Structure formats: structure tokens, C-alpha cells
């Protein structure tokens, strides 16, 4: 019940029934957009990224938040590298160093 995959809305299949075609890595499927319209007309959503689950788009993907998460992860990685570098140089300087 958790298997959801990001895909891009590439066209609208039926405006009235809120059906669009979503592309997931080159595989396209007609998908129900009711949950992601947020008051807009389906045609306005072409190009948006959504999470697809059992043939329904369940949420839009916020590209800024995605970017922020990746940046946070990268930062965490850098901090980690710095800490490790400090530790390595501390070890090299000998155990007599005050810590």
C-alpha cells in the first residue's frame, strides 16, 4: 500500500472525468487526477510531477522541497566529511592532543 512512483503528467485524456496520461520513465498510463487538481482544470496540470499509486495521482511533488531535501543531505554529507577529516588529522597528530 505504499508503492508510489513519481511520474509526469504529459497529456489530458478526459477533462470531465479528470483523467490524464502520466509518464513514468517512458511508460504511460491513464491516471485519475482528482486528488491533485487543487481547484485547477486538468489541462493546467500538464508538465507537473505527481506521485502515482494504483492508477491515481495522489500528490504533487514539490520541486523546491525535493531540492531542499537533497541539499540538506549533501550538507550532512559535507559535515560528515569534515568531521572525518578532523578525526583523521587528530589521530595523525598523536593521542597526546587534548580533545
Amino acid at each position, binding site marked *: 500500500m505504499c508503492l508510489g512512483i513519481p511520474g509526469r503528467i504529459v497529456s489530458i485524456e478526459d477533462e470531465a472525468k479528470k483523467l490524464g496520461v502520466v509518464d*513514468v*520513465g517512458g511508460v504511460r498510463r491513464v491516471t485519475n487526477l482528482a486528488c491533485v487538481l487543487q481547484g485547477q482544470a486538468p489541462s493546467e496540470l500538464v508538465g507537473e510531477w505527481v506521485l502515482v*499509486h494504483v492508477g491515481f495521482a495522489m500528490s504533487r511533488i514539490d520541486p523546491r522541497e525535493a531540492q531542499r531535501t537533497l541539499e540538506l543531505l549533501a550538507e550532512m554529507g559535507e559535515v560528515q566529511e569534515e568531521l572525518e577529516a578532523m578525526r583523521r588529522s587528530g589521530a595523525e597528530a598523536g593521542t597526546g592532543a587534548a580533545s
Partner: protein
Amino acid sequence: MKYVDEFRNPAAGKKLVARIREQVAALGRTAADPIKIMEVCGGHTHSIFKFGLEEMLPDAIELVHGPGCPVCVLPVGRVDDAVFLAEQPGVIFATYGDAIRVPGSQKSLLQAKAEGADIRTVYSPTDALALAKSNPDRDVVFFGLGFETTVPSTALTLLQAEAEGVTNFFVFSNHITIVPTIRAILDAPDLSIDGFVGPGHVTMVIGTEPYRFIADTYQKPFVVSGFEPLDVLQSIVMLLEQMQAGEARVENQYRRLVAHDGNATAQGAMAEVFELREHFEWRGLGSIEESGLRLRDRFAHLDAERRFLVPALAVEDPKACQCGDVLKGTIKPWECKVFGTACTPETPIGACMVSSEGACAAYYNYGRLSTLPVLATSGA
């Protein structure tokens, strides 16, 4: 693949693990006194095993695999009811692939199919509705399974069936809700979880408010997590940060998809179509109040339980089966007496071994390398 590959970057993953090691050391915990983190959702169990995340984490972290696998918690009696429905004359029984091999007291759906029942695997409830429309002389029964992630899809499909005047489409609802599950875990006397990795897609629907009681009343950190390896690892970092600060909050790691209020349309559809049952039977956890969903009276004409006389018997789990304890996390899969011997993916006794995200199946299929030494020394 965009929004997937970036969150599977192994180099970044290794750095997160290094951070986790430091946090664990700072907390002063060891393998003898591990930090117990439970991932509630079966999708997380699957990710953890698929990417080998448990192997990477320090021994001082013990991952407890929770009961968030909707197939695993299906009681035997409900599987029997599903088989009963599939064997009704004229019925096309449409189900997600996950459920097809779960053993009932006599047989699984797969065995029923081999014996002649018309059982079809579908990807979406809309495919089942399409089957009903293209087979007007047959009754199509859809096996509605899953937590709140999946409920809106079933609900929207039923609304469509009603609007289009379809009368040969029925839903056999085994939908369940996540909060009672978590509460049952928190109330279990033989369990002590330090923090939770929360179900990202369920929360995408219900929002983060429903979990407030976990932090406020039970004082446990709860981080709503995405499903890629970096998501899970980052969520663990966030949990440990809370523990280091002595806090207990509900946090959202899956911000690119999960909004605080969840999805209003999805919630609206769920409320319009479904209502809570007074209680619902869960494999291994017993009867839990207000945890199961059934169709409202307005949709009685599309409710499989009202259209067909399902036996609805309460069937005991097989004596040898310890799925309940595994689901609660009180024992590890390999501690079950029949794990790997009488109970294997080929000859499953319980649902934990059949479902693609059941803890037993996960350990048997993916993780038995790490447990082989454990088994060897324990003489099992």
C-alpha cells in the same frame, strides 16, 4: 528516473550512516542495549531489505518491523471469505497481486484459481471497474485491501461506479486505518519502541495531525519518511537528533510529497464512501476497535458483504503460526519455530512469509545471510 535516483545515491547513503554511527555513540547506546526503531509501514520494510540498509546500520540500532503490511494482518477468516467470493458462480474476482498467495484455512486465491475460480490480478481498482463494464453478465468483486494510501482510490472508484449506474461491481472491503495499529503497538506491554519511522504515503493522505498523540501522550519521536534509501536513513538521523535533544515530536522528512494537512480530496472521498467498523479482526493483534472500514449504507448495493453471504467466520491462526508476535515485533522472524522449515515462501503457513513486504519473507528472501550465523550459533 527523476525524484527516485537522486534519493538512491549510495555515496550520500554512506555518509548518512556515518552520521548515524556518531549519533549512536553520542547517545551511549550499544548492541547490548540497542535503540529500537520501528518502521510501521510494509513499504519501508521492503526498502530496508531491498537496499540492505539494516546491514549498514550500527548494531546499536535495532530495526523492529511493524504491522503495516495490510496483507500480513488479514486474518485467515477474511482470506476464506475472499476465496468464497471468488468461487461464487459468475463472479470475476479482481485482486492486487500481493494477496493472491496468502493461505486461507483450505486454500489460497491462487489455488482457487487453479481449481477454476475466475481470479484476475489488477493494478488499479479502476481496472476492476472496467472489467465490470465490459462483462455486464458477470459480477466483478474487487478485493479492497490497504491502509489509507489505497482507500481513496477504492472510494473514488466506487463514486464513479455509482455515478455511472454500474450495478455489477462490488467491493469486498478489508481496508484498515493506521492509527489504531500504532496505538496497539504503543500499548503492547512486551514492546518498547524508542522511535518510529512513519508511513510516508499514508500520511500524504491523512496529514501529520493524527500522529500528535504519539509525541504528546506517549513521548515517542515520530518521523514521517519517504521510501527511498536516503529518505529512510535521513529519517533515522532525525529520530536520533530528537533523542539526543530529549525531544518527542512529529516531524516530516518527506516534505516533497507530504503536506501537514494531507490531501483534502482524498480525505473527502474516503469519508463519503467509508465508515469505521466498531471493531475489526487483525491477524496476530486480535480485535482492534474502530480500525476497519466498511462501505456506507448509500453504497450497500456495491458492497460484496451485503450482496453475497460471506461466511465471516473467525478462524484461528494455524497453531504453529507466530505471525502475530512477528507483526508486533516481539520476536524476530527467525525466532518463529517454523521459520525456514515448515514455513517458507514456497510453503507459507502465515501471511508474513507470503507478502512481499512481510518481515519473514523479507528475512528469508533477502536477509538470511545475516541471520545464518545467528542461526548457526543458536543451534536452530
